């Protein structure tokens, strides 16, 4: 089963859709979890997920905002979606009936 950070990365990529790339995913994770993720954790996890067949990445377009540098685009594969769902179901299953389950943050 994938780990917690791998789940965050896959889910953030799915939420961003066609706009999923390194910096955007990093921002999405920070915005939704309140935790900053390092570039090191992001890119090593991207590579690990790609090696497992859960993601595809490629170099995308460059923009002036990025100093003319290309983005590393991300697309989640069907296998990645299944892996994320497996993790989600496991967390939901093990959290059933605990005191904090169902509480809004």
């Amino acid at each position, binding site marked *: 089963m994938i780990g917690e950070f791998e789940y965050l990365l896959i889910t953030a990529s799915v939420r961003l859709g066609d706009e999923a790339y390194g*910096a955007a995913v990093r921002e999405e994770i920070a915005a939704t979890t309140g935790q900053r993720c*390092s*570039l090191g954790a992001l890119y090593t996890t991207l590579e690990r997920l790609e090696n497992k067949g859960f993601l595809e990445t490629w170099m995308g377009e460059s923009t002036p*905002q990025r100093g003319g540098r*290309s983005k590393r685009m991300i697309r989640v594969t069907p296998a990645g979606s299944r892996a994320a769902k497996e993790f989600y179901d496991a967390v939901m299953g093990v959290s059933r009936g605990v005191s904090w389950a169902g509480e809004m943050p």
Partner: protein
Amino acid sequence: MNRLLDIASLLLEVEEREAVQGDLAEAGESTWRGLLDVLDLVFRRQLLLWTDWRPWLAAFGAAWPVSLTLMGLSMAVSTGLQTAVDGRPVPLIILTSQVVLLPIWAWTAGFAIATLSRRTLWIAAVCALLPCLYCLSKFHHSSLSKFCLLLFLPPAVWGVRHALRAIRIPRGSAILLALVVTGLAIYIPGVLLLNCALSWPAWYLAVTAKRSS
């Protein structure tokens, strides 16, 4: 500070460097924060490399022991040539074998180490050079320069360069080199079995040349 960040980024692969520098520019992070992020990624990448067996073999199974052995061979060649120059009798066959073996063995070792693990080559280089520095500091000979210990370095570096340029060795040549290295290893000072065992980089090249053919 920006210069430091650019230099640190050079430690990344080309595409990753492009993406990371772009991400940092887009995020508008401070240069100091960006530098820490890049160094964190570089450190993680290096750590990941060492989960494979190849860097360990290249650094500690080849670079370090072969460096020690080749320093001994360099010393033997230098002593033999000095004796010949002085007009004293030398065992010609042994000396000729050592003179032939030294560059071949050094070249194959450099080539094999760089082929095994290009991205951790700097660690292998440190493992090869540390014994050299130690021996250089302890070397005392009345008629030989201490740098005679380093005769093996130029062909070894040449072998590394060829490997980094992805030059392929034909299978026949690789097997011949391995046989020459192993066969002539009996003429160098040291434990015979150990010397033959340390010719494994040449056999590694022969095996991998066979696979790529």
